[in-house]
């Protein structure tokens, strides 16, 4: 437990150090207004990373999140362009359900056909991108075709924070609850930590993975609408390559790629770390060639730290379980 805590404390410390470093070169970056802006900008990454966390916990990976986001975004944008009267609530529901359906496709293929998730999602990633091209004919949906309400919603301010940021906060809070306080949330850990043991405790590995993909898909769908509305443009290539950033956020946050280890708080911090780096690089006047190298280094460092902790973690979980059983026995 103390190790787990220290891992997040370490990352939190790294974020504060990073902010301090940036502030020495560009003091305006740590102004409250700007931090809100950075958080808002990071929200889509955060929401996707939360979904990805669940998938990675179950020893899978979802590479189709960005394509899912792009397809949902395109559908929402086209719907709005064709029928500007459709209320935003309806569009949100559509986005979440469409995303969930695409996640279910991944989940079913992994569950029923036992295909490795990396292959499944690599395939569906291209399929979803292809569908965008088919439905849009490669054409863009542009700002002037979208309604005021459609593009205005993520920007609307509630209690000083844009709606987009609130979505990030809500998703994080809901995920914290779901992972720590629901049977399904605990099943994600069980399936990833030891699939065989999970089966003996009555947890279906495939079904759990299916729900993980569905959850990840639904969150990607939600981001699809938010993304398209935020940038007020939808085209085939939106969020191209974003799935890797999402995986990177999870990895930086300490989610073990081998499954079963990591926390939601870690993911939140990982996404924030990456978001701060991405937003700070343009203002601290570093050559674009170095920018890529810096982002890459951050990921490698995180994975290295992760690997060194990974072995310990397996034992920790067992010890925790042991402690709990002994506690239970004494109580």
């Amino acid at each position, binding site marked *: 437990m103390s190790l787990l805590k220290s891992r997040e404390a370490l990352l939190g410390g790294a974020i504060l150090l990073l902010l301090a470093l940036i502030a020495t070169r560009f003091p305006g970056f740590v102004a409250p207004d*700007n931090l809100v802006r950075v958080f808002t900008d990071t929200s889509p990454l955060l929401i996707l990373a939360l979904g990805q966390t669940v998938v990675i916990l179950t020893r899978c990976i979802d590479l189709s999140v960005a394509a899912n986001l792009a397809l949902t975004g395109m559908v929402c944008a086209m719907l709005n362009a064709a029928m500007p009267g459709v209320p935003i609530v309806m569009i949100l529901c559509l986005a979440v359900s469409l995303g969930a359906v695409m996640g279910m496709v991944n989940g079913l293929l992994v569950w029923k056909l036992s295909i490795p998730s990396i292959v499944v999602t690599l395939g569906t990633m291209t399929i979803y991108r292809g569908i965008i091209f088919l439905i849009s004919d490669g054409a863009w949906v*542009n700002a002037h075709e979208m309604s005021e309400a459609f593009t205005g919603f993520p920007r609307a301010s509630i209690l000083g924070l844009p709606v987009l940021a609130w979505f990030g906060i809500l998703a994080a809070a809901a995920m914290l609850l779901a992972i720590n306080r629901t049977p399904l949330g605990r099943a994600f850990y069980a399936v990833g930590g030891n699939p065989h043991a999970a089966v003996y405790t009555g947890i279906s590995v495939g079904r759990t993975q299916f729900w993980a993909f569905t959850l990840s898909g639904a969150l990607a769908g939600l981001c699809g609408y938010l*993304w398209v509305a935020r*940038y007020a*443009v939808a085209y085939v*290539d939106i969020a191209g*390559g*974003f799935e890797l950033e999402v995986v990177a956020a999870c990895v930086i946050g300490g989610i073990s790629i081998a499954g079963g280890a990591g926390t939601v708080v870690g993911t939140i911090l990982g996404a924030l770390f990456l978001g701060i780096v991405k937003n700070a690089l343009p203002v601290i006047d570093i050559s674009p060639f170095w920018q890529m190298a810096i982002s890459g280094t951050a990921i490698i460092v995180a994975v290295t730290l992760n690997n060194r902790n990974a072995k310990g973690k397996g034992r920790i979980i067992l010890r925790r379980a042991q402690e709990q059983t002994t506690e239970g026995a004494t109580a």
Partner: protein
Amino acid sequence: MKLTRRLFGGAAMATALMAGSMAQAQDPVRIALVVKALGIGFFEAAAKGAEEAAAELGNVEVIYTGPTDTTAEGQIEVINALIAQQVDAIAVSANDTDALVPALKKAMQRGITVISWDSGVAAEGRELHLNPSSSPLIGNMIIKMAADELPEGGQVAVLSATTTSTNQNTWIAEMNKVLGNYEGIEVVGTVYGDDLADKSYREATGLMQTYPDLKAIIAPTSVGIVAAARAVEDAGKVGQVNVTGLGLPSEMAGAIESGASKSFAIWNPIDLGYSATMLAYQLATDAAEAAPGAEIPMGRMGTLTLDDNTEGAMADPFVYDASNIADFKDIF
């Protein structure tokens, strides 16, 4: 070039051709405008320009055609059909630089004038190529649009695509060459949005933070210019920072409306179709010959000067602003 081909074609062919060109005096000159694919707004607009040229010339019939999808095979079929119909000229925007060459060579052997426009064909497959614009003209235009709004001068920054994009790098280099002509304009930096909406948005936001006195963002890329305009709107700097560069009217209509962008440029497809038709007519009627250094008139668009590669640039990119955006935003 055309002459040598005709000689190679043999005497019989030459006689047939002479008879053909005599007949042209009475029959309308039939010019085929072959586009990458039918149903694309840009090319529909070019066809409008071609019709305009035909009306101006009088004795011209424009055949607007192309495959249903943007493939070279589809265009080859279309070209073979046009050869069979014995049109007088083919003006093609090619889906492939090399794949069309054999079909177009065959057309030229049959005495059909072949030119390429917009997207070119290798030199041996056409008599001349019409570029919509040229790198020096584009480089000059993007800085001119920024400078026109800044009589007092001020800081401007460039938001490009990727660090390795050939087009953008060439345009920016050409822009820097003519920078001295615009007094008081200071280019403070170039950033790269990688043609991704989110990265371009972030880079544009970063520029506004780093340079609080920034007056204009020049984005010579269609993804970048839209994202930069959005970033300016979200930062509440409309009127303070002007976004300009290269973009499409349909994509930029929102930014013009909000005032984030006062003007931007891209080639005008109507002018392009018009010029291509004019050039094809000049060559098909033997009023002009496509040779390096030749100057061929193209009606209201002035003259086209051919370089050593028998290519020429039509004009400055066409500037779109609040006054004309409505006419173009539904076209392309």
